[in-house]
């Protein structure tokens, strides 16, 4: 379970203090498929970054499975992210010099998998996201939708407890978006992987089973469908 307690994140912008996340209390249970929505600058990405340990909260706590991760050291946090959290970014962020399969294997390599395990699991994951025929292609040889599917496979490679996806469909056409959401939805149901999205995309909001709305860093609505 992911929990935030009185989570605050303040940035300095010149002489101004900007409250990106303001006193957010949120609980996300295992297996949820949640979208965090809100206008630009509402604090969606900052909230996801704090939950994923990429950003350090100004105050408050981030608790995952009873562990207060917001107090972890940088090195401990990197290890925690590697073994527990999968990230999907808006700009896909695959390593350009590696093939689709190698991008997935790299995460497993960091976890200490052996070659055979890496090989088998990366093929399985590529199958899972429908990219088995493009395993040897580099990111530049894939469309945006295909890259994002590989990014999802990479996020799954470490067998994470949950996946944080920051505007995953923002750069995709409707067909690719639908395909990606199908894959994510299936993984959520079949593998019980928790998904937490930040999004503007109505298509994602429609598929989410819970929608948390942020405005000026505060939760103003939390609807479970």
């Amino acid at each position, binding site marked *: 379970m992911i929990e935030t307690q009185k989570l605050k994140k303040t940035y300095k912008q010149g002489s101004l203090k900007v409250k990106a996340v303001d006193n957010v209390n949120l609980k996300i249970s295992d297996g949820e498929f949640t979208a965090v929505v809100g206008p630009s600058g509402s604090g969606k990405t900052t909230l996801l*970054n704090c939950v*994923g340990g*990429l*950003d350090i909260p100004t105050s408050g706590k981030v608790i995952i499975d009873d562990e207060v991760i917001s107090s972890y050291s*940088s*090195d401990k946090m*990197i*290890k925690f*992210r*590697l*073994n527990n959290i999968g*990230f999907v*970014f808006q700009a896909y*962020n695959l*390593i*350009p*010099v*590696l093939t689709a399969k*190698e991008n997935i*294997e*790299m*995460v497993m*390599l*960091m*976890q200490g998998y052996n070659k055979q395990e890496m090989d088998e699991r990366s093929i399985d994951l590529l199958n899972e996201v429908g990219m088995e025929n493009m395993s040897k292609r580099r990111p530049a040889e894939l469309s945006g939708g295909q890259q994002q599917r590989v990014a999802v496979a*990479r*996020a799954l490679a*470490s067998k994470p407890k949950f996946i944080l996806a920051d505007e995953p469909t923002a750069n995709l056409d409707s067909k690719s978006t639908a395909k990606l959401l199908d894959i994510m939805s299936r993984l959520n149901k079949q593998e019980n992987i928790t998904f937490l999205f930040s999004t503007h995309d109505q298509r994602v909001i429609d598929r989410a089973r819970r929608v948390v709305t942020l405005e000026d860093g505060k939760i103003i609505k939390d609807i479970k469908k």
Partner: protein
Amino acid sequence: MILKIAWRNIWRNNKRTLISTLSISGALFLVILMRSMQLGFYDNIINTIVQSYSGYVQVHADGYWEKQSVNNSMEVDEQLLNEINSINGIENIAKRLTTFSLVSKGEKSKGSIITGIEVKKEQLMSDWEKKIIEGSSSFDNSNEIILSKGIAEYFDVKMGDTLVLFGQGYQGMMAAGKFVANGIADLNNPKLNEMTIFMDIKSAQEYISSENISTHLIIDKKEYYDEKKIAEDIRNVVSNDYEVMTWKEILPELDQMITADNVGGLIMAFILYVIVCFGMFGTVLMMTEERMYEFGVLLSIGMGKVKLYLIILLETIMLSSIGVIIGILTTRPISIYFNKNPINMDDFGEGLGEAMGEFGFDPIIPFSTNWDIPLSHALFIFCISILISIYPAIRILYLNPVKAMKE
């Protein structure tokens, strides 16, 4: 995988990689050839003057160097030779007896250095037979001499010609005798070629009327041993009746000339390395700064900072390795060619060779093919690349993934 990532990363921008590696290999090309030429030149001088004539270390009777006379000679017995031979790093020891005499043939006469030698020992030490350009390399009779090339030309000597030697003997005795030319030697040193006459050491002793004396013990060292240390060790085993000198003490001008010239070469190499250093730093700077976003992503997905730094370090090392390999491969055949076919200074203008001869050097520059030269410079380039990678290391150490991805 880390290796694969690093290798592919350096080829992301082919042009930049090529320019960087070519700048490294270009600088290394110049440095290696310049140092091969310099060190080859020094080796040649040391080989012709030190190894084949003065030896790396000399032992004399105390005071001989101050006043070089047969009256300051020494008796060399087996015990002394055994004591010196017991020292680590000594390859050979040869006795010599040197005196000054007037040589004449027909109407002509000339001052010369008479050197009594042990042919077998000289052969081991300086490949004596190779120096003989005419006649015999040994002395079958006690009245036979071998003349250096310059003297032979001066007197227009043919084998079997008789020359008269006249000089000072041991402790006031007169030294005089008729000697037969039995060979001509080229000492590869214009000055020595002008004034040296060799005879068997026994004949020389007989000539100056004193048995069993020598003026020099010439000591050849094994490769890579330090002559200074050997001289120190000899001083520790022999009594104060002897003086021990290294070739640098015997020929200080030569040592100073080599040192001064060498410093010039090193300054030149330093300037080239500064250029290489900036070139490499520029590349690494770009490779780091343009990938901050990617580094942020890698940290986000769980790559440790040490691994991330390792990738950059490997990229820098690979980049420099390519440059180093190209630099070594292109210079090697050139060094070998000019080692076998030394540059002759006479080819660069009339009088250049002669000018060098004035200083006692053979007017040729053979390149050194010693692997120490390319390898030491390759190592230096590696050290530079490791030093340069400190910059990305610092950037990665303080990298915040969120900020990096915003950048």
